[in-house]
């Protein structure tokens, strides 16, 4: 029999939670985290991304402020900043006299090599007034409401129609491939006795070799052999190498006629939830510099979310589109966001793809053949490369655009 006192505790818990929702009680930590998990629980976005985001944001505000106090050329917003994007170095802004251009130098004072990557202008909603700010330092410590950067405006950045990776001119250099499970953890075990850990490793190795041939990326595996590696260690490994893209390979398990193919990505269920959360929970607040960092992190999270979703979409559509030609039972389960530790803990765009399924003996037999596994690796490669070509500064088209932009600006 359930004790009355326990029941009262439950009712009390509901009451407390509703007080909090109504804004009449203190935030319950657990609940608060649940609501804002997408913003607060994850580790910080890569320093480089955050630096880039904050610098671009600050530069946009600063440039606008300069523009409002000195007569700027009409096209000034097209050349806000040149940005160094090499992974680890921090950067600072150097004001170039009265010119409406700021360029980044690395922390040791060396002028960065021109990466050929330029930011575009910030959305107008972010280019709001900055009154009584004499220099960047003042700007940095100014209260947020003074510079009128509403927390909700980061959403405007996300919705500006320009993918954030393109907006910030980010590139992909290091790809980490994570063969799921391993060692003591076999993952799913098929009816014919094959292990998910083995199939995932074989596909991961093939994918690594295929991507390495492009000559543009450093491709790493979280494990090279049948060894036990915790999820945390995989995350730490990837972050330690400043991963730009993370792909975890798994095999589904579910008794069925179909072979389920699905891809999961990091992120909240949709952007609007985050936006509304920001609006509602911050509407009456007075933000100071500390909160400014949170906004920057939100931009970083939005970036990771956007990119992970696009990567997932590209991989899933390529994988399923081609798999269904060689396996009539392939079933498209689409892309989904999910709270997998290995996705949440990463600083970079990340996906977990269930490339096939131990769903019936026929599919298991196919997975046992090297050719079938190689096919899967090829489809994954096509999905990844297709994403890279469309979405990052390593894509040929984007580079071409940037070169044109650079020439126009000189």
């Amino acid at each position: 029999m359930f004790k009355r006192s326990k029941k009262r505790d439950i009712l009390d818990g509901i009451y407390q939670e509703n007080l909090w929702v109504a804004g009449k009680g203190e935030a319950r930590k657990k609940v608060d985290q649940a609501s804002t998990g997408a913003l607060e629980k994850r580790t910080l976005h890569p320093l480089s991304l955050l630096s880039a985001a904050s610098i671009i944001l600050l530069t946009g505000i600063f440039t606008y402020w300069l523009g409002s106090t000195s007569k700027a050329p009409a096209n000034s917003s097209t050349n806000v900043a040149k940005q160094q994007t090499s992974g680890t170095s921090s950067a600072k802004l150097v004001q170039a006299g009265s010119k409406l251009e700021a360029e980044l130098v690395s922390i040791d004072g060396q002028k960065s090599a021109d990466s050929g990557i330029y930011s575009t202008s910030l959305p107008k909603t972010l280019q709001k007034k900055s009154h009584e700010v004499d220099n960047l330092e003042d700007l940095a410590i100014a209260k947020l409401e003074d510079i009128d950067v509403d927390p909700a405006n980061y959403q405007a950045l996300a919705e500006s129609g320009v993918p954030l990776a393109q907006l910030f001119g980010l590139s992909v250099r290091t790809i980490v491939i994570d063969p799921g499970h391993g060692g003591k953890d076999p993952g799913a075990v098929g009816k014919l006795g094959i292990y998910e850990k083995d199939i995932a490793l074989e596909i991961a190795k093939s994918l690594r070799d295929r991507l390495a041939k492009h000559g543009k990326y450093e491709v790493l595996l979280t494990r090279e052999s049948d060894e036990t590696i915790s999820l945390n260690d995989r995350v730490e490994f990837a972050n330690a190498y400043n991963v730009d893209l993370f792909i975890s390979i798994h095999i589904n398990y579910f008794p069925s006629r179909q072979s389920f193919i699905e891809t999961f990505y990091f992120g909240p269920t949709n952007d609007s939830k985050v936006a509304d959360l920001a609006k509602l929970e911050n509407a009456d607040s007075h933000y100071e510099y500390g909160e400014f960092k949170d906004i920057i992190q939100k931009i970083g999270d939005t970036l990771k979310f956007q990119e992970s979703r696009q990567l997932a979409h590209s991989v899933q559509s390529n994988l399923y589109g081609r798999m269904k030609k060689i396996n009539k039972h392939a079933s498209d389960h689409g892309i989904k966001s999910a709270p997998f530790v290995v996705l949440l803990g990463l600083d970079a765009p990340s996906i977990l793809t269930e490339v096939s399924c131990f769903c019936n003996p026929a599919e298991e037999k196919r997975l046992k053949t090297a050719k079938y596994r190689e096919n899967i690796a090829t489809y994954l490669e096509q999905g990844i490369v297709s994403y890279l070509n469309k979405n990052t500064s390593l894509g040929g088209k984007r580079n071409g655009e940037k070169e044109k932009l650079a020439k126009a600006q000189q």
Partner: protein
Amino acid sequence: MAKKKSSPKRSSKMRVGIDLGTSRSAVSASNGARDYVASYVGWPKDFISEKVLGKPVLFGKEALDNRLSLELVRPLEHGVIKEGISRDEEAVQELVGHLLELVGALESQEIYAVVGVPAESLRANKLAIKRAVQDYVDSLMVVSEPFAAAYGRGLLNNAIVIDIGAGTSDFCIMHGAMPTEDDQRTIQSAGDYIDQQLFSMMKDKYPESDFNMNMVRNFKEAHSYVGNVKGKIEVEVPVAGRMMIHDITEEMGRACESVLPAIVENTMELIAKFDPEYQEIVRENIVLAGGGSQIRGMAKYIESALSEDGACKVSIVDDPVYASADGALALAQDMPEEYWEDLLKEE
């Protein structure tokens, strides 16, 4: 029912539990009445429509049946009010007023309501629900739907409730205390996802046939199954204006099964997080609620999949459509009076 006006004195009290669902919304009241309605709200498009229909606003099936004359809104998406669309918030308000009318609530009564929301709803979503409901009630609380279902069935310890709705499937593991966010999950593998899959599969198989999502939803509600089914599932769909028989047996099975991997995986993960000493007990106490639990073979199929890792028992609540609303009512009735008073809306 008209919106509440500022009035300090009420003739009597009524407690209600409301389950605002993407597909259908249910209400249970302390006077013993309960009802449900498809979550559609429609306003006549113009003066002529209003004259023909004879009502300023229509709900549920009636709204759906007259959709050509209406501005039709399905205001809930994934179990929460669609973001930033005032018409949807207005529609939820109308829907709540209609639900209260259905159970005979009077404007003169003091109404205390508990409303079920998806397990992982954000505070923003809860506030949106509160805004929509508060004009009709005196005091209001929101709780997670699977928790409400668990509470209503007395499943407060060593149990998992899976509420398979239209917009979301919600999980709640009960361990004798107020569930935290770690104990609850919301995924979007649910009824609407099945509809989309079935629609897509039917389009692939019968590209010349003419059908819409509403027809597909009706096919699902009439014929859904997972596992094996006896005989064929045949439906009538127009092709070039003529009604033709279509065999959708395989498509129906595949579409319904498409939500299972995510449901099974999340159930396994919740079990794995439970105290290992009690995992065996929890495995024997998995309960399905919500409209999705009515898919033929669902409980058996999930039980079979989970049994790969050890014995388990999956059952369905007696009255899946009302499980959350009944549970919300039970909470409303058990909640101490002083708690309600603290949450009385500010005049």
